């Protein structure tokens, strides 16, 4: 029913656009050969829950841009493929987008493993990927632009906030894969540097899609009953979150006793739960739908109009795509071409407004500057911002809290290197790549 209505609305909108085009062709009407934009998000399988929304957000951004006159006077044409939550298929679909469809740029991926799987393809065929999700860092590639948060733009400020709130004991609870493991490694080191004792930290991992949280939650409860203020830092991924919060509620753990700060729970994830028992639990992101700025209001209105459903929410990775897409448009206009080498060279230093009232800049390490917001879940499934960094935080590709990466530096403008060793003063990475970049 709903989808039929959406479809009809969209058809009507398209028809209206055609009529408008015929009657009063605007001066900005894009013409010429379309520029193809690849969208590489899973539309089926386990990750469809998160990634389908990003595909829709990209389609909306492209439609908006075409209304504004396209890019370089040419219209944009989205090319959507479905890698079906299958990591090797991501690489195949990326190859298809770049070599067969000849797209100028790709927006896509969610999980780190899917990003790692497409990396060699983007390097080999020299194309551009915009990656919109918060991730574990420890990477900087010439062909990839990371518009999601690095650990220092999400995890560290969240822990700082909790320390200010008087938390002394820490449970680092995560799903067993690369993002939680790396993030927890960084956080553990960070907490120890802050003087937290070994016995005041427990780290625990559960499998993907874990649903029986009874033992884990009672362990957290026991750990938190020593009289010291305790908090849970959660890197639990995807579907496992709902049963986790349900079990917390059932066992009577409230946010005022043991708050949970999550890095993977946003508006979209809360849409599937009754949030009454979750009120007061926290999330750290660079964007919340509840942020009160004119840009955000405009973005939400456009999103609701595009998707045809007032109940749909916006979230952080959507904002990342918004920033990334606008940066790409600006860089292409500046370079005057969609040639990957020139666009890659033009991107660092590009500034575009974000949705939280600031201006994000693409840094030489291919990460961007972002504000860090801590929000408490309210009973409407939204977040009330309780803390916000004063300035935008620049994304750090290599964590300062891991001894083996503290000495590494990523700089694609001066050093032409994603992993420059400042002690040995040489680039550790594929030197051929760096030279190629220099040419």
């Amino acid at each position: 029913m709903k989808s039929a209505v959406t479809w009809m609305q969209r058809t009507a909108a398209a028809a209206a656009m055609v009529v408008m085009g015929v009657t009063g062709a605007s001066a900005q009407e894009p013409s010429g050969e379309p520029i193809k934009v690849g969208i590489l998000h899973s539309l089926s399988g386990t990750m469809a829950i998160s990634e389908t929304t990003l595909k829709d957000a990209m389609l909306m951004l492209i439609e908006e841009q075409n209304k504004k006159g396209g890019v370089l006077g040419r219209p944009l044409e989205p090319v959507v493929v479905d890698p079906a939550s299958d990591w090797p298929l991501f690489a195949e679909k990326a190859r298809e987008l770049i070599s067969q469809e000849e797209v100028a740029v790709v927006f896509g991926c969610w999980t780190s493993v899917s990003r790692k799987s497409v990396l060699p393809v983007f390097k080999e065929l020299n194309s551009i990927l915009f990656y919109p999700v918060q991730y574990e860092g420890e990477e900087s590639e010439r062909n990839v632009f990371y518009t999601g948060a690095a650990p220092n733009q999400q995890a560290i400020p969240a822990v700082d906030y909790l320390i200010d709130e008087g938390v002394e004991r820490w449970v680092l609870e995560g799903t067993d894969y690369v993002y939680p493991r790396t993030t927890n490694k960084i956080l553990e080191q960070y907490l120890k540097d802050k003087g937290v004792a070994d016995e005041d930290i427990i780290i625990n991992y559960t499998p993907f899609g874990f649903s029986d949280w009874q033992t884990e939650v009672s362990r957290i409860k026991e750990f938190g009953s020593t009289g010291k203020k305790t908090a849970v830092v959660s890197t639990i991924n995807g579907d496992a979150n709902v049963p986790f919060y349900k079990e917390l509620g059932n066992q009577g753990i409230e946010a005022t006793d043991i708050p949970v700060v999550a890095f993977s729970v946003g508006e979209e994830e809360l849409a599937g739960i009754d949030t009454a028992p979750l009120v007061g639990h926290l999330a750290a992101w660079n964007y919340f739908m509840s942020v009160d700025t004119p840009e955000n209001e405009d973005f939400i209105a456009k999103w609701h109009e595009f998707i045809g459903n007032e109940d749909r929410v916006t979230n952080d990775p959507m904002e990342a795509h918004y920033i990334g897409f606008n940066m790409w448009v600006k860089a292409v206009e500046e370079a005057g071409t969609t040639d990957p080498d020139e666009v890659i060279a033009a991107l660092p230093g590009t500034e575009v407004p974000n949705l939280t009232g600031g201006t994000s800049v693409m840094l030489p390490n291919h990460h961007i500057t972002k504000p860090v917001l801590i929000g408490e879940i309210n009973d409407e499934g939204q977040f009330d911002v309780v803390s916000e960094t004063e300035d935008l935080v620049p994304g750090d590709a290599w964590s300062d809290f891991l001894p083996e990466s503290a000495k590494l530096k990523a700089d694609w403008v001066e050093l032409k290197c994603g992993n420059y060793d400042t002690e040995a003063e040489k680039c550790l990475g594929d030197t051929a790549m760096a030279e190629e970049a220099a040419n």
Partner: protein
Amino acid sequence: MTPSIRWLLAALTFLFSAISVAPVHAQESDPAATIQKFGGKQSYDETEAVISELAATGDARVARALRALREGDLYWRESDEAVFIAERNGDNYDLLDPLTGEPAGSEPRGDMSKVRVKNSIRNAVTTALGSLTLRAENPAQRMRAAETLFSEADPEMIEPLDAAIEAESNADVLIRMQEARAAAVLASDRPAPEKAEAAQVLANRGDRESLTMLNRFANSTEDQAARTAAIAAIAAIENNIAFWNQAQNIWYGLSLGSVLLLAAIGLAITFGVMGVINMAHGEMVMLGAYTTFVVQEFIRTSAPGLFEWSLLIALPLAFLVSGTVGLVMERGLIRFLYGRPLETLLATFGVSLILQQAVRTIFGPSNREVGNPDWMSGAFDIGLMSVTWNRLWIIIFALAVFAALLIVLNKTPLGLQMRAVTQNRSMASAMGIRTPWVDAMTFALGSGIAGIAGVALSQVDNVSPNLGQGYIIDSFMVVVFGGVGNLWGTLVGAMSLGILNKFLEPYAGAVLGKIVVLVLIILFIQKRPRGLFAQKGRFVDA
């Protein structure tokens, strides 16, 4: 900085300002005026100062406003910064006076702002309420107040507690208050004999919080006798906790086992009895869960009063939906593949993908919200173990489904025919049983049971298109481990896997625990390929 010091400071500041700035107002502690200070844009510190100020009035009437603040129902009007308790009513807020609770008109939502709260503010409110409601009318409120004060362990509160204990008539509340007093005494600098007495009170309480307090006391006290007594009490509590931990593990194991049983019991029919490797079994469970969602959606829009009954209404519907899909699958696909397990496996796997994507297309890829009725929310305590209602109901439900299935198999004509067909198909056919019809009914029954399981699982898991995938491997594991073709084997298999898993989890962690269970099952199957309860008799190899 303990809350008590903060509190004291705030109270002093308030007193000071009351004396120095406004000497004219003799009735400075007018709570209505103080509540109005929540109005206007404020920092969290300012809000917290107003809370301390309210607590210092000692006036129990401010509890209403404080509670509203904690629940996020306290708003201020943007035109004049007047503070109200607001209840949402369509596009308006119905306003209540924060002190008396009298209706005070209504305002459009856009004109009201919420008094911002965060966890530390909620905690400050809870503490303030604890001291304010110690003498409340309602025993439940006094109970909560006593519990809050117990965890605060604030020496300042000994005297108010003494007064409250004097006046208390309810025996349960009295015990809690004495415990709260004991906690406060241990934290104070009262003389040693009094502390030793307090330690005894805490030893009788015997939970984890008292353990922490006793530990702290035993490490700091000078009194040798009191220390020995405290150490003995600590040992007793630790024993007690260890005992209840084991009980808790068994309970968790039973609860996990009942979930496994629910997921596997339908498969015990289709795979166990009929021998069909049905990879779409998990999707039957998922269809049941989505049926629950649809039923709840319908109830929400047309008959909100029936919400508490939504699960009971969903049960027969889920059975019908999944059973029908099962029937269609058997008639349209599986019956052509009997005796060809590999093809059956591939074909049913295909069906499972089709069903998943169909649900994704109809309902969208994201999770759907299935609410818990009130009787399935919350928890209660047995000793030191907390039992959640939803898990308890699921155990009862799983056992009920199991019993019902046993009756169907052993006491009904359909059950008799089913057993006859599986034991000797040609003989059954010769006796006039329509074997294809029995096959179809058996498969529909197994699928329908899976649908019923879906209703229960919608209460503990995500209702998403992937729901079934998570259970398919576990279900096969249970059926194979328990012994193919034996319903009792499925019961024992599910429960023992559940308990084994939950005993391993605290030591090995969830990830390793699962691996260990899998390895153990592989070893077990090597030893006993037919599972725990192997079928015996002539028909086994048929």
